[in-house]
């Protein structure tokens, strides 16, 4: 029964891959949709059947000496849920891109890239061995590069794509460390083999942390995430909701049984997550680019997920947040895409305002998405965020880190309210005669579908994704309401932020605001100052002293000169005089014979 189930799921994906090659882009979108429905049905069957929750499908791929490389899929609850969420969200994004990219001459190729992106992500999620994970991981990286630099004529887009691939490459080193370590010590790349380890290796876990930090844009490797906004909006939507950025968190979830056995690594991941969520939330407060705000909110939520994986030790909650986040974040990006498209590619929130009357449906969806992001009770975000805050509160954890998480949560509300106020509410500041129009089926349809799911998904998913090791606890009222309370406080903070940011006088004179607006000066320092120092050192010492100096003197020019001298000696001996030759030969022979006699 279960095997049949897994084969059906894989078959639906295979059909999707076949439709990827079709020339009609809408047929591919349909295939994604039906694959999503199929997997939803199969998920419900899996949940209803009381058999084991795990299924492995394995085929032997190649046999290398004693080691056999398997194609193996791991169908557990995570994989199945993610299949449904990923396929559903991607279908909507594909439909949205028919609207958003309709004037693009290469829209067919664009849809194929999106499809490949999704397939790589599904491969990553369902992988049972590290090697298959690597294939999906690299596929996601390459497709993100191609998609971010979709408008390749823009130098900003190219720079952003290069940033994405470079920072991801740094993270990939971590994955390679994992592969190397497990190949050398275990000779096995399967997760089951790794879970069965009775000791925890710090080196391996550092690789896990590095890989996850690179892919999920944790603090230190985060600048590519906001920069990736240079791609088309459907790309941002897919990249930030269900693919790519959650891959790192997913890796942490996969390895959480091992991480939770290692106190130091657990603490390190916890701090990384809390710092990321706070830093990104702070940066999101002062951004004026609409997509940048949403991007930083993604980074902040990723930090929250990482926090809850390691700090509270509840990977189920992190995964629940991934699923919920996928719905409303995709919708938020689509709404901002709709606004941007309607306003003739205007992304600056200071030139928006009053859009609730120009685009009411998009505005409503934007409001629902923001509310879900803030964790307004009984929307999707509430069901994952509230348990996260609670579980962090009741655990015996670092008090400052807990405080940081609470502050970041309140900031979530702050930047969301600010963004809502400036784009949707208030008076209109946009240029006159904007062709704002939402009479497009491919805009309204995906938005509505995702809005419904943002409302009800939490109620559905909480039934089977609640953390199983935490029993129901009695909480004080203050803690029970902590999440809602900090969100309310955040809403109030937003008012102050709005007042502070949008006064008449120039805001650059306030250093704290410059810190926020310049995203902590991190990209400037990392991309301008450090390369400058390195380049100067390389130019002065490596190039001038070594490359053009002493090595040049010693090797290319010196060798040539020395060989010329020696060759001249050899050739000058060729005097063409037989007397000389015979004399030299006799002398040589005499010398050799003399040495022989003496010895």
């Amino acid at each position, binding site marked *: 029964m279960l095997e049949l189930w897994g084969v059906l799921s894989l078959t639906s994906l295979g059909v999707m891959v076949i439709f990827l090659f079709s020339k009609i882009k809408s047929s591919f979108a349909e295939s994604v949709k039906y694959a999503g429905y199929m997997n939803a049905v199969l998920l419900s069957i899996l949940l209803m059947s009381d058999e084991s929750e795990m299924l492995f499908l394995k085929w032997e791929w190649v046999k290398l000496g004693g080691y056999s490389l398997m194609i193996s899929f791991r169908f557990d609850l995570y994989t199945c849920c993610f299949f449904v969420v990923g396929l559903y969200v991607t279908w909507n994004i594909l439909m949205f891109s028919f609207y958003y990219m309709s004037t693009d001459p290469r829209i067919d190729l664009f849809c194929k890239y999106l499809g490949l992106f999704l397939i790589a992500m599904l491969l990553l999620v369902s992988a049972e061995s590290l090697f298959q994970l690597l294939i999906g991981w690299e596929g996601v990286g390459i497709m993100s590069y191609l998609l971010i630099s979709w408008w390749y004529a823009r130098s900003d887009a190219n720079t952003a794509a290069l940033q994405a691939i470079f920072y991801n490459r740094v993270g990939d080193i971590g994955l390679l460390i994992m592969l190397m370590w497990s190949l050398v010590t275990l000779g096995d790349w399967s997760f089951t083999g790794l879970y069965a380890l009775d000791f925890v290796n710090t080196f391996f876990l550092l690789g896990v942390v590095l890989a996850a930090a690179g892919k999920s844009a944790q603090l230190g490797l985060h600048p590519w995430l906001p920069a990736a906004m240079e791609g088309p909006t459907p790309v941002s939507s897919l990249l930030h909701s269900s693919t790519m950025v959650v891959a790192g968190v997913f890796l942490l979830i996969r390895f959480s049984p091992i991480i939770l056995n290692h106190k130091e690594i657990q603490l390190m991941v916890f701090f990384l997550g809390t710092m990321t969520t706070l830093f990104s939330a702070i940066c999101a407060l002062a951004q004026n680019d609409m997509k940048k705000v949403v991007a930083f909110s993604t980074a902040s939520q990723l930090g929250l997920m990482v926090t809850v994986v390691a700090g509270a030790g509840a990977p189920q909650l992190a995964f629940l947040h991934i699923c919920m986040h996928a719905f409303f974040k995709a919708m938020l990006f689509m709404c901002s895409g709709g606004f941007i498209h309607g306003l003739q590619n205007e992304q600056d929130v200071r030139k928006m305002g009053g859009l609730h009357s120009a685009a009411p449906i998009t505005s409503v969806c934007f409001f629902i998405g923001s509310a879900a992001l803030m964790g307004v009770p009984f929307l999707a975000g509430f069901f994952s965020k509230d348990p996260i805050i609670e579980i962090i509160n009741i655990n015996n954890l670092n008090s400052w880190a807990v405080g940081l998480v609470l502050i970041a949560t309140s900031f979530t509300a702050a930047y969301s309210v600010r963004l809502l106020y400036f784009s949707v509410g208030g008076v209109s500041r946009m240029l006159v005669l904007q062709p704002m129009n939402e009479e497009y089926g491919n805009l309204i349809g995906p938005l509505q579908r995702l809005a419904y799911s943002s409302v009800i998904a939490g109620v559905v998913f909480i039934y089977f994704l609640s953390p199983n090791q935490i029993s129901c606890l009695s909480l004080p009222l203050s803690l029970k309401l902590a999440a809602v309370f900090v969100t309310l406080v955040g809403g109030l903070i937003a008012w102050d932020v709005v007042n502070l940011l949008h006064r008449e006088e120039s805001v650059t004179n306030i250093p704290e605001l410059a810190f926020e607006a310049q995203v902590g000066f991190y990209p400037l320092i990392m991309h301008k100052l450090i390369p400058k120092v390195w380049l100067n050192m390389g130019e002065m010492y490596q190039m001038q002293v070594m490359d053009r100096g002493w090595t040049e003197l010693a090797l290319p020019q010196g060798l040539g000169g020395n*060989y*010329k001298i*020696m*060759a*001249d*000696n*050899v*050739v000058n*001996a*060729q005097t*063409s005089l*037989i007397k*000389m*030759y*015979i004399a*030299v*030969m006799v002398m*040589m*022979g005499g010398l*050799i*014979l003399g040495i*022989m*006699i003496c010895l």
Partner: protein
Amino acid sequence: MSPYISPLFSITMIMSVMLISSSGHWVFMWLGLELGTLAFIPILVWWHSSLEVEATVKYFIVQAMAAAVFFLGGMVSLSGDFMGGVNQLMGNIGDMMIMLAVVTKLGLAPFHYWVVDVVQGLNYIPGAVLLTWQKVPGLAVLTQLATCNNSSMLLLFGMVSALVGGLGGLGQTQMRKLLAFSSISHLGWLVVGCVAGSLLGLSYFTLYVVLSIPLFSILHMLNGGHLNQLRTGLMFNPLMSVLLGVGFLSLGGLPPFFGFFGKWLLLTHFVGQLLLGVSVVLITGTLISLFYYLRVSYLCIVVLGPQQIMSGLNWRKMQLSGLMSGLLVLNMLGLFLVGGASCLPK
């Protein structure tokens, strides 16, 4: 000279080699060497040009001197212990003198001066015979002489030959001199190979012959005495010119070609016998010589010489294209040939 008499000389040269390799006594070796030299000299002056005559006289003087030293060495050894077999003459002066004479006849490094001048004076065909076939008698003696006692001396000669062959060709623009220096360099490898194992020397010599005879004959056909004349070769006879370039790369020992695998075979055996310093010196010499091989190949393959506007590559005048492509394939397929040779006992 009448062409009908040339088979006599050729048969005499072959007989001389057989005489040497079938005898164990130095007198017959001397006889064989002298017979070979005397039979070769009329071939050298085939066309009676002044350059040829000069080269022949130089060749004759040096060979005669070497033969005298050979005979003297034999007499010395005979006076020493009154024993006739070469294998018993170990470490005495006579043995050494015989070896020096043979080395002079071969043209190894400190005694190499005559080779360059003689080859420069000759045509390509007699030059090819001089640099290939005429080495066989000397090598036949040398393989029997290469005993433990004087093998270190032979190693020294081999190393110096490789270096001198590399350095001497650096500034050369005359093709024949260049080939002479290349021959000296290869002779260095060859002699070290003879010391490491006579079959190694034999296989390297075969390889050198197979590589160099096509080169000599192509150069003869292209009639290129100077490097500059090679530049027009690609236009007038492209196939041969390309083969010439590939052949020189192969002679220089670049990896996909035949010449590399010969050197590889030798090097594996040298390293296996812990001749590490010798290997390093040999490779250094080859590296230096690679410069002029590359220059020749560059001129043959890459550069298109000055030409009139309407004349393109002259593909119609290709001669012997079957033979040429066969040689080209031979150069490329060195891997298989040496694969068999590497099964030789170490």
